[in-house]
């Protein structure tokens, strides 16, 4: 673990956070009547698109691990696999547009990030998402943001049954908001946590 690595991570997280915020504000200049609560579906689309685009770009630009040198065929297979995993993570969301977009958002926050960092490698995934399985600060970052997004979405479901009649209580807005806030929180927490525990973090490579 080097200082530079941590700095790179911070920069990446900052960019990601900015992209989320940008997705919530920027479309107002292009679309009339856009607001997060007013037109949640548009916001969901914008948010997923911007975050996923940024993740792909980031992965290509300052990829944490050097891109695997493989033949073009293997590359293509890997890419297809990635797409398949990403689609699979949508789950049963094809029943309604709301649920579908929420699934896309949540997958962007979780599955896509994992795919970018880890690639279509089940063993690596299982390793990262188990206790003491992280092998770099990127793994730690991944763990924390993913768990935070999922937890945020989980907590976001709480206010749905309340009878306050607020616009953000409707499925899936509160969950999407929860996931987004969770993701943002994860982006902030991860570098802090790594900084806090930098003494204990000793990554052994296999």
């Amino acid at each position, binding site marked *: 673990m080097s200082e530079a690595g941590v700095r790179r991570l911070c920069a990446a997280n900052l960019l990601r956070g900015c992209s989320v915020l940008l997705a919530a504000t920027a479309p107002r200049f292009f679309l009339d009547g856009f607001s997060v609560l007013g037109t949640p579906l548009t916001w969901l689309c914008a948010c997923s698109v911007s975050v996923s685009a940024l993740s792909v770009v980031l992965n290509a630009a300052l990829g944490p691990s050097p891109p695997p040198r493989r033949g073009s065929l293997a590359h293509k297979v890997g890419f297809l696999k990635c797409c398949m995993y990403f689609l699979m993570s949508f789950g049963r969301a094809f029943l309604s547009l709301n649920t579908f977009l929420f699934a896309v958002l949540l997958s962007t926050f979780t599955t896509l990030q994992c795919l970018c960092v880890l690639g279509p490698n089940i*063993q690596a995934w*299982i*390793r990262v998402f*188990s206790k003491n*399985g992280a092998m770099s600060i990127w793994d730690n970052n991944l763990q924390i943001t993913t768990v935070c997004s999922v937890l945020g979405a*989980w907590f976001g*479901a709480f206010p*749905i*049954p*309340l*009878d306050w009649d607020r616009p953000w209580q409707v499925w899936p807005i509160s969950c999407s908001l929860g996931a987004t806030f969770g993701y943002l929180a994860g982006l902030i927490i991860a570098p802090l946590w790594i900084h806090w525990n930098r003494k204990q973090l000793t990554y052994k490579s296999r």
Partner: protein
Amino acid sequence: MRLRSGVFASSCLLVEALGVALFLRGFFPLPVRSLPRSEARREPPAEPAPPGSGTVSNWTKIPPPLFKKVVLVLIDALRDDFVFGPKGKQFMPYTTQVVEKGTSHSFIAEAKPPTVTMPRIKALMTGSIPGFIDIIVNLNSPALLEDNLIWQAKTAGKRIIFYGDDTWVKLFPKHFVEYDGTTSFFVSDFTEVDDNVTRHLDRVLKREDWDILILHYLGLDHIGHVTGPNSILVGPKLREMDNILKKIHISLLSKEGGAAPPNLLVVCGDHGMSETGSHGGSSEEEVHTPLLFISSAFEKRNGPFSQPKVVQQTDLATTLAVGLGLPISKNSVGNLILPIVGGKTMREQLRFLHLNGFQLSRLLQENTPAYEKDPGYEHFKIAEKSHGNWIKLYLDGNNSEVLLNLGKKVLKQYLKALKTLSSSLSKQVAQYDMYSMMVGTVIVLEVLFLLLLITPKALSRRAEFEVPLSPPLFSLLFYLTCLTLCAVHVIVCTSAEGLCYFCSMSWWTAAAVMVLISALMCGILSAVGKILQNSRPPVKNPVVSNSSWSEVDILILAGTVGHVLSLGASSFIEEEHQTWYFLINTLCLALCQELCRNHFLLKEGDSQHSITLKQNFDNVKETYECKNIDITAPDDSKLGKVTATDEFLKGSDKWISLASPWIILICCRLLRSLNQTGVQWAHRPDFGHWLTSSEHKSELSFLAAISLVMIFILVQRKCSLVSKIAMALGLLGVYSYRAAIGNIVFPWQHDSKDISKGITEARFVYVFVLGIVFTGTKDLLKSQVISADCGVRSTGLWEVYSGLVLLAALLLRPHNLPVLVFCLLIQTMMTKYIWRPLKFDAAQITIMHYWFGQAFFYFQGNSNGIATVDVSAGFVGLDSYVEIPAIFLTAFATYAGPLLWAIHLLCYLSSEVSRNSSAMGHGCFCYALVRSVPVAVYIILVTGLRYHLFIWSVFSPKLLYEGMHVLITAGVCLFFTAMDQNRSRRGQD
């Protein structure tokens, strides 16, 4: 005295049930609000005196009746859209024509929850709002002692005839000159109940010797209960009602003429029905009922028909009293419906309103000390004053436009005053017996604290602990507390002005309760003392290693705490099913994660781990061998276990095991779409409705048949041959019972004309239920007496369980049979692929069982409203209403989910040979604990929220459910303890 955890937990629960019962008795006081009736005959007030001396109004008597004869047609469960909606237009043409063009006034009367027949009849006739407890005494209605319309009419010499629901006859004994009561308890009778009423009609309508005729039709309610509001049976029933109304109306019109006042026909419903066809709750469909006044005294309607105004149901009593020239009932909180007297002169109208206002303000005076500050009372005084001014002008002979306008102003003032008065009175109806509630709460809380304090010991390996009885019982503290409490009791009871249940109990009982409270307190104190003593030297074990908490543990703890906290919000209570669905979904995900880790990760680690283990064992062996001690046997067994789990993880089982949480999640999703419950989303279309609609009978039959077969396959694997056969026959009987009462059809049967009560078939099933349970009990006894091997006992338990499954299959409605199938399926999968490989301890498994039990409570269509209780389950196989079996069967059908899961827990824990003998005690203790935490918290919350707006519609039904659940849990824990007893005895042998 040494006590085992199970025994301790069950006794705690029994005491807690006592406390809850006391609390409930205090929370739902019987309405004894009215003063004795002899006092009710007060002189009616005179018209307000005009200001200035000398002139006094001479109108002191009650105004004469406006109507000669009144016919009140009460159609049970008549919802507003059955008359004013498209159904009314289609099926009730005559009524629609009268409503839209005839001489009538139509309103939507809003019923207050509980929307159950007897409280509604009371509300209609007394004008007061009966307490919630009326639901419980609904089944054996005692005579109504309050001042009411019927009594007033009888005292005034009116002759009343009644035909219909015999609740009326019980409520008003000896009030009717002629009556014929029909019992309402046989729900699947649609025609006879109404024919019994109608057959008298022609004869009575020809006669002249009556003043009030009351008809109560039950058929519509029965149709609603059995088939729902959208069934094809509703249309013909409404048409029948329409014809009856037409007949009565024409006959009433033909009797009019001469100088006598006109007649009045009133049509109303006592409550509506929800989209599932039941009632009791407070949804719009249940509280909105039509209220029609039809009389030639009214002006003909012209102009387009507009949506009827909403009035309160209690307003009918006041309006009828005015219309019949009777004094308004003392306890009525109703307002006069002004359009009914709209044809009268201004002086008369004002007089009526003054009478009503005077009665309401007197009621307010009797109930609130600070009545003078009440805005309603102030408004009324102002209105009375201007009324006096108006009378002065009137008596002066002023007859101009000015007088009329002034009169209208006074009228408005009166109406405003009446509205405020009755709303502030309605708020006061709830009177709580705080003392009994406090005593109950104290008992429940003490039990909870005791349980919590004892937890570490009760969950220890032995599941036994020392309860020092003598030191606390002979301590000075105990006697002092006893004495203090008794003194407090005497003081409270002598100072309280009656109305306290706990005070009205005999002194010995009260003293016993006090002794119990102080004993519990001393128990808590000694437990605390012990913990403090023990915690002084524990430097050596610093807070039993936090890292031992797995994700599942954290989830279980957080879920329990979160659920308990959510009970404070009314919406979370209304939608409690969502909480449970959410929790079990999360639980499944956590289990999935646990399984993944177990299968993928531990594989590598495990091999290392087992290698080290083996090395360890080898080392141990070597050392022991050095010492020449033969320890191969225990060693091998331990190693064998390790390899067994390894083996288990291999092969196809591994993938099934990994997939099982997802399969369970899919099952839960399917079950969720079977029954929509709750309040906010209850109206959404669900699969259950689709199945029960009459067009889909064949699909329902197919589903029921498949479900019954599945139940047989899932249950039979652990049964003995005899019970297998009995089970199969019993399930066949279930199908034929449902076919006999017309819910489903046999494939060869095309017309479902011959609908019977299915008594023979149901009793046939009961015989098999009893037979299977008896076989199981026999096995249990055998295992206890001759202490046979464990297998006999677990077979016996499983047989008892399968007997209960058969009973549930009989009692649950056919569209709910898949719930039973999925229940069995999930239990099987959980047992085989999740609990066994993951080796959870008894406490975790107990709480998972509890969660699933709660979720299944809602999966089967229950909610926290009274309306979803399926009363028809109490009549399965019974000829007429028999109280004890009906209550038992209804309770069983309602709590089938939690009960089946609890018994399955027992089967599972006792079948696990590898578990140590304390598992059962742990399970019982956890079950008791996890049940008493929400109850205790909820009781405190309800006490705090007792003036909440939704206390009657949301919190009270939930409180009843909780109380009932505690009682059932106490029963389950006793069963647990009995089983545990066997085991320990055998262990000692």
